[in-house]
């Protein structure tokens, strides 16, 4: 192999320096700190600490509350990703077919994107407020004994609903542009080859959207893992009894509210490992199948 040699100039390093600095300060350093702290046992006031090897990890992995949170996170993430992708795909396909007033539909469907997660959480809070929440009253008027303050499933439902609603508009934008990226003549060729519109969707449109869907799956899982923090913190705060606390929320609760820095750090290290494994898995095994 012949390699092209460029003159080494320091200028490019200056250009990337700010980015590297940001990554180092806000990601690498805290991550290193988390790894370091996860091996320490600190007293409640942070006056002294002791190196305890893997005891924090043992504690975390053997605690039932962490396991409960891990299971909730897995189920919650899967539901948020799956439901919001499904809904937004449906909306995008329908919006793509609309001819009259298409722009208004699309704009309205994208609006949710502008809402920050804590604001979405606040909206959810109001809608489900037991005193004046419209959705709270609606569900109860149907005869459900809906009470998300005491019932874990109801609380999980509320958090999932808000998280899905918040994410639908993002997915919608990507799906819509994905649909518009499919050449018109390909769709037309398909109408000559296949009469059933539903079959056409599953055999032509959906496979052609697969790269978009995969990308959104990664984005949505990341969103459900991390960004839903704002929604949870404003709406349920992990209640009742930690039933709606995702792993990230639990890290925050145990570390910053419970002042257990070592345990909290161990949790975040575990979280880092899980996300890395998940990402590798997604790219190794799924991405290969979706690109045509």
């Amino acid at each position, binding site marked *: 192999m012949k390699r092209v040699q460029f003159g080494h100039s320091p200028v490019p390093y200056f250009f990337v320096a700010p980015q590297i600095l940001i990554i180092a300060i806000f990601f690498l350093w805290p991550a290193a700190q988390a790894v370091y702290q996860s091996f320490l046992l600190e007293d409640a006031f942070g006056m002294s600490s002791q190196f305890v090897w893997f005891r924090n990890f043992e504690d975390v992995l053997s605690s039932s509350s962490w396991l409960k949170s891990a299971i909730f996170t897995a189920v919650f993430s899967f539901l948020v990703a799956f439901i919001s992708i499904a809904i937004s795909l449906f909306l995008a396909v329908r919006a793509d077919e609309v001819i009259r007033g298409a722009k208004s539909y699309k704009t309205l469907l994208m609006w949710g994107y502008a809402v920050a997660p804590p604001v979405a959480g606040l909206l959810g809070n109001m809608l489900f407020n037991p005193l004046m929440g419209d959705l709270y009253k609606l569900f109860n008027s149907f005869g459900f004994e809906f009470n998300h303050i005491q019932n874990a499933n109801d609380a999980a439902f509320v958090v999932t609903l808000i998280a899905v609603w918040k994410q639908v508009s993002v997915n919608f934008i990507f799906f819509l542009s994905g649909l518009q990226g499919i050449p018109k003549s390909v769709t037309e*060729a398909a109408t*000559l080859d*296949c*009469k059933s519109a539903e079959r056409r969707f599953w055999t032509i449109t959906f496979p052609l959207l697969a790269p978009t869907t995969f990308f959104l799956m990664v984005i949505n899982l990341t969103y459900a893992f991390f960004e839903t923090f704002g929604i949870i913190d404003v709406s349920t705060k992990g209640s009742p009894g930690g039933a709606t606390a995702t792993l990230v929320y639990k890290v925050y609760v145990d570390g910053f509210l419970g002042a257990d820095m070592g345990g909290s750090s161990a949790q975040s290290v575990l979280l880092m490992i899980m996300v890395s494994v998940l990402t590798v898995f997604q790219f190794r095994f799924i991405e290969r199948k979706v690109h045509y």
Partner: protein
Amino acid sequence: MATVTLNRAEKTYDNGFKALHGIDLHIGDGEFTVLVGPSGCGKSTLLRMIAGLESITNGEIKIDDRVVNNVAPADRDIAMVFQNYALYPHMTNYANMAYGLKNRGYSKVEIDTRVRDAAKILQLDDYLERKPQQLSGGQRQRVAMGRAIVREPKVFLFDEPLSNLDAKLRVDMRLEIKNLQQRLGITSVYVTHDQVEAMTLADRLIVMNAGVAEQIGTPIEIYEKPASLFVASFIGSPSMNFLNGTVSDDKSHVVIGDGSKINLDHQIESGRELVVGVRPEHFTLTVDGSGALKARVRMIESLGAETLVYLEFGEKNESVTLRMQGTHQFAKGQELALATTTDLVHLFDRDSGKRL
């Protein structure tokens, strides 16, 4: 085996634009019909209406004796080849060809036989397991043709299938299409803006302009007897020469430009103003200078087998083109005397543009 009939087929788009002004057409069984015209003339719209990709506003379209105005495209028993191939990128070439058959419930064995037969005809045997991206433009277009062939449809529709190919490949594919169509004997409608494709492929040619079929006929009929100024200028390259003239008092000739005469064998009233059309290849040089038209050389294009001479004549410097066999040299500004034969002269009404 099928015929296609259009009765006063009209198309008006939602925005009020009238793309087709009532087309009457009968395409016979096994006939290769070419729709030709400049962009925006409605030729693609017409094809897409036959395919069912565009709705028909008025009139009717029949395939055999069945009115298909409201029949779904997949039920019309037609197959279409698109300009940009329109292959399904996520499927192998085999799956691309098999897709239409699979959806119509053919057995696996039947599909396999048909796909492999088509692949053999189109020399795609070695590429069936690949995906369209791994093929060249010409090969992709062959897969698209294969997708149409395996269906054994009543009608083939071609929407400028060669426009995306380079010049050499275009000529090869043109011959291949012609061969294939003759071999399969399937009624075909072919849209193009390329008049060479139109002339060489067509059993019957339809020259379209602004949503109207200007002339329908065999390529030679259209070349020899263009029905209007538009057709005359569109078919033939370089384009026909048009000279404004007036019929002389004794009706024996037309006076053009600065008094040059072109003989006439039509019976046309004297003094009538008309347009005389002469194809560049129908002018000859006269040695003694007694030709009808004296013109000055402006530019020469030597193509080897033939030479195109661009000249101008008269005080208004009207231009005229001459096409000669072989290579020739003329000096710029040199005066040439051009003559033509009476029966190769086309006469058109100056107002309506119609052939006289």
